[in-house]
């Protein structure tokens, strides 16, 4: 029973990170209609910057702030300098460009920060809570992760549902020409979408790194599972991304604990195929399926 609870908790902790990552994908999808495959490499890059800051200042929180700020800048920069040149009606081209960015950024991180394993400090304790001699796999650091994801989720929902900027961003993504005719600064909205998405991605990067090891490719599994989580929840829906992320975390933890760790990638693939076959628009999307 304790094993089941602990496996579940481990899965939820991991799932929270997938959720944060899926949120970043949803954000960029809703605001620009592009799937950003470079998200993971961008997050790894900003996490390394955070690590430098954490090591020199000794404060995890300052590191987090630096990661978020540099994510914001990096996201805006990527949109302005690279993605915009592909053209407004060339979504496939933009996707391919993000794949190229993914490879390039990962290589750049290896060159700048070295390719070896490095430890990343945790925001808080790494020891599980215990009561009456029973310790559950829930740590203060995990609570911070879950809390951060909840805050981001609420923030995003509020942004898109209740603010003018959110509405403009959605309008620019949905139909740039019409939005422009209505006076929406479409270019600026697209940049903002990328910047916010990269910020959320950076958050995911720092959250998963805390209390574990980082190397330039450490986000690779998160990219795959976060993408599956986003598709599972429906690329359009922030709530769906969170549910999808948590579900992926739990499913993969259960597979690892009770079936075998070698089947984890296969399980992720099985979920992806099942979702695309049965409900291609995802569990929570209200609109009809779109081709990615």
């Amino acid at each position, binding site marked *: 029973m*304790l*094993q089941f609870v*602990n*496996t579940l908790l*481990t*899965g939820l*902790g*991991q799932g929270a990170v997938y959720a944060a990552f899926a949120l970043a994908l949803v954000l960029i999808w809703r605001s620009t209609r592009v799937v950003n495959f470079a998200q993971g490499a961008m997050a790894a890059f900003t996490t390394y910057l955070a690590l430098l800051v954490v*090591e020199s200042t*000794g404060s*995890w929180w300052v590191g987090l702030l630096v990661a978020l700020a540099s994510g914001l800048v990096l996201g805006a920069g990527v949109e302005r300098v690279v993605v915009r040149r592909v053209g407004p009606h060339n979504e496939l081209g933009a996707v391919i460009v993000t794949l190229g960015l993914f490879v390039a950024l990962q290589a750049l991180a*290896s060159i700048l920060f*070295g*390719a*070896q*394993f*490095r*430890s*990343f*400090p*945790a925001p*808080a*304790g*790494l*020891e*599980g809570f*215990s009561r009456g001699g029973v*310790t559950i*796999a829930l*740590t203060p*650091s995990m609570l911070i992760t879950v809390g951060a994801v909840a805050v981001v989720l609420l923030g995003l929902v509020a942004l898109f549902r209740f603010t003018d900027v959110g509405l403009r961003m959605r309008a620019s993504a949905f139909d740039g020409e019409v939005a422009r005719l209505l006076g929406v600064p479409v270019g600026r909205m697209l940049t903002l979408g990328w910047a916010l998405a990269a910020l959320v991605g950076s958050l995911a990067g720092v959250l998963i790194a805390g*209390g*574990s*090891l980082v*190397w330039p*490719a*450490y986000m*690779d*599994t998160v990219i795959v599972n976060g993408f599956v989580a986003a598709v599972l929840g429906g690329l359009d829906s922030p709530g769906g991304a969170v549910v999808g992320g948590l579900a992926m975390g739990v499913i*993969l*933890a*259960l597979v*690892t*604990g*009770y079936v*075998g*760790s*070698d089947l*984890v990638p296969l399980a992720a693939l099985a979920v992806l195929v099942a979702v695309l076959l049965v409900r291609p628009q995802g569990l929570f999307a209200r609109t009809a399926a779109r081709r990615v």
Partner: protein
Amino acid sequence: MRRSRRVRVLAALALGAVLALAGCGAGGRPDSGSGGGGSGGGSTIGITADSVKVGSHFPLTGVAAPGYSEIPTGTKAYFDWVNAHGGVNGRKIDYVFRDDAYNPTQTSQVVNELVLQDQVFAILGGLGTPTHGAVLDSLNAEGVPDLFVSSGSLLWDRPQKYPMTFGWQPDYEIEAKILADHVATTFPQAKVGLFLQNDDVGEDAERGIRRYLDKQIVSVQRYTPGNTDIGPQMSALQAADADLVIGFNVPSYTALTQLQGLKLNYKPQWVYSNIGADPVLVGSLLGRFSQGQVTDTALLDGMITDEYLPRADNPSDAWTAQFDAIWKAHGDGGALTNFRIFGMSQGYAFVQALLAAGPNPTREGLVEAIEKGGTQFAGPWAAPYRFTADKHSGISGAKVVRVTGDSTAALGPVRVTNNGDAPITDATAGETPVPPNGIPAAPGGT
């Protein structure tokens, strides 16, 4: 539009030309090796009257680089030392090592370069089971001596199929036997869990462990390298009530198991294989988590592992003192580590083999000399090699130790065994004395 098309055509032409040139480059030297008819009818590629060229591949970057990338720096320092003392039979050793990033595709590429372009005489200490496994066929087809592979896989001991390949360190099976035997006698009541890397390492180890602990094992968990989330496996070990866990894993996973144990408040007696147990390296990974909440050595204190080479932190050992002097003279200024001692010991082993092959070694002569005299080669290693014409396995034993702080304490004498159901016995030979200057003497009583 027209202009861009012309640019494209030009680019295509240029690309074609480059490819054609590259093709010529690769194929343009098939006969350069056949000049080595040499004495005794063997191949003398890579060896001249005053030099011998040796190549190797290591992960200098990537996930396997921590620690392992230091090995060739040790070997290089040792060869520089030997060269400064006149070389081997007047020949200077020219050591070339290349980065394969622990990626078998890259290993094939860099080893091809070493063999075809650099024309090395032999490959020494190539690291890794999947990586070196990828070049096993080609090295043997080319007839290149493939000495002292840095991996404990049983793959290197197939003299019928791979006559040029020799292992070096105790293979995972005998290492597991020695550790398991210690556990069975010291902890007869323990409920044993296994934490294994999901490949040859884990398979060979499990075979060795089950010979002694089959009835005590309560859970076997595996991890896939690259997936750092090992929480479920640790929960399963805890749920099975395993109070002693034997881990055959790489160093980063030693750190991860300790972190996860902290999370679950799961503190079994840990027994790690030599490959995953370097206390300095693991301590440096662990020491920086959580801003001091995890102190570097506290978690590792008391874990059990095994050793078959002198340790860097033990300057009272004559071999360590000698290696320290060599490292001070020819090292890169960094600290002498266990990994560098590993590399230097391999360098020592190579010089010894080269001397045994006589004044005019050929590739075939080198292999023959190791098969003939290999069991007698003594050096810094704890137990003799098992090299004969029918067996290409390396060091035959190790001693079980307990980690205390950054150092270790022996839990008994060196134990020696062989693959399969061979018994485990105490080593008979004592420690090998350090030869003058730390350079092996030519065999045959000279």
